[in-house]
């Protein structure tokens, strides 16, 4: 892949001038300039304050820049905007931009190659867009499995998936049925657990959609038609940065299956606080979906549930599906009964709920050696 193409990743760009405050996005970043998509422009040479950022990829960098060129929108995929040339006195900021570009051009590290995939949720009601995205990512990424893309066709399905799993990036279309993307983004930002997840908003809606989604809390807005290459480069950066964004031990993934929403919420909060990545399932169908999609390192299963006994689930996973990851039974049953069931199911062990969350976290750490 030519470097010119690899440079085209997306960052949030905020421009402040004497008469304007513009929040948009930029690409074609070099050590000396960036192209920012915007309808706003001023005379060539006009100085502006520019802040570039993207969660987990680029901590905010403030630079002084000048308008170096103005481009009128052309063909689809050629949005109008301005090229901003960084002030030669940018100092530290310029150095950080060069570091960022170096990282972008660096081959994936060996550590990253063995890592869990970067998990993305795409919320778009167009099946064709979803398919294009899935197909495009499969072709774009050099390393199979580097990216795991999940889909939701509307806000409610997205919310269900977000409640049950953890994502590194959420891409939200603005025009969604029943609840628009801006409303979904605002809900995400109000949720303590999801508030800091990077969000990219996409739309054909132009300025109105951009302002609505950015006001709601999107990190970046990208116009449709999407130039997938730009978005995929951004994802590649995000995948590469997972190593930096989380301590190594945090990448251990635990799937928790319990019919009590309260127990699920509490267990997830405790395990996430301890640094694990957690997915939850409240019934058999969501458990099976999560088990396949989430590929957990450890499974916690409640025993007495309406649809099935947890020891039967564990036994079937072990004996019939050949699941190798450890499975722990978690229950308020008497210890002797729980021990008997765990042994019968060939589970890795059991945890009495009465022992509390501290013990549960300790056992998870013990089983996932090297975890926090």
């Amino acid at each position, binding site marked *: 892949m030519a470097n010119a193409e690899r440079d085209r990743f997306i960052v949030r760009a905020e421009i402040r001038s004497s008469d304007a405050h513009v929040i948009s996005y930029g690409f074609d970043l070099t050590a000396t300039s960036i192209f920012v998509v915007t309808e706003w422009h001023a005379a060539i040479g006009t100085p502006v304050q520019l802040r570039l950022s993207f969660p987990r990829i680029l901590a905010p960098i403030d630079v002084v820049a000048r308008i170096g060129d103005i481009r009128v929108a052309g063909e689809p995929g050629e949005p109008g905007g301005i090229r901003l040339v960084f002030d030669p006195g940018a100092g530290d900021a310029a150095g950080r931009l060069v570091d960022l570009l170096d990282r972008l051009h660096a081959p994936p590290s060996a550590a990253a190659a063995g890592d869990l995939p970067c998990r993305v949720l795409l919320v778009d009601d167009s099946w064709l867009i979803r398919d294009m995205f899935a197909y495009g990512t499969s072709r774009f990424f050099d390393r199979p499995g580097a990216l795991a893309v999940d889909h939701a066709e509307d806000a409610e399905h997205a919310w269900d998936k977000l409640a049950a799993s953890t994502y590194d990036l959420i891409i939200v279309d603005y025009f969604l049925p029943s609840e628009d993307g801006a409303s979904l983004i605002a809900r995400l930002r109000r949720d303590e657990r999801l508030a800091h997840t990077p969000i990219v908003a996409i739309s054909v809606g132009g300025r109105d959609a951009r302002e609505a989604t950015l006001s709601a809390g999107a990190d970046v807005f990208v116009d449709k038609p999407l130039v997938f290459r730009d978005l995929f480069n951004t994802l590649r950066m995000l995948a590469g940065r997972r190593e930096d964004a989380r301590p190594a031990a945090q990448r251990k993934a635990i799937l928790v299956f319990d019919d*009590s929403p*309260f127990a699920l919420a509490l267990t997830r909060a405790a395990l996430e*606080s301890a640094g694990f990545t957690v997915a939850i399932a409240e019934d058999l169908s969501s458990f099976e979906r999560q088990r396949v999609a989430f590929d957990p390192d450890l499974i916690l299963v409640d025993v007495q549930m309406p649809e099935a006994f947890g020891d039967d689930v564990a036994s079937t996973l072990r004996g019939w599906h050949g699941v190798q990851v450890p499975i722990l039974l978690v229950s*308020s049953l008497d210890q002797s009964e729980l021990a008997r069931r765990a042994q019968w199911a060939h589970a890795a062990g059991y945890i009495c709920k009465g022992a509390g969350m501290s013990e549960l976290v300790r056992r998870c750490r013990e089983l996932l050696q090297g975890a926090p």
Partner: protein
Amino acid sequence: MMEELFAKFFPQFIALARTRVAAATTAAAGRDHAAAPTVVRELHALAGEAGLLGLRQVIPLARDCELKAKALQRSRGDADADALLGALRELAQLIERLGAQQGG
């Protein structure tokens, strides 16, 4: 960390426990035998939720209620219903005391 989690989840637990015990009491007092499986399951869940949160004193009472609810499910007799109602009153009182101690 666990203290923060407790502070966050304790009010939810108290509210949920009140709901579960109230539903079980209504079913037992009204001899609603069709609700028996749900009552048993919810009392079992209550014991587990209390245990995870570290409220160990709730567990034996919740388990006792669960066992009495199972007995009522089998017998459908007034004596078992009254025994369950008595155990549920005790459990409800404990939950109210806990709620009051923690300002819930």
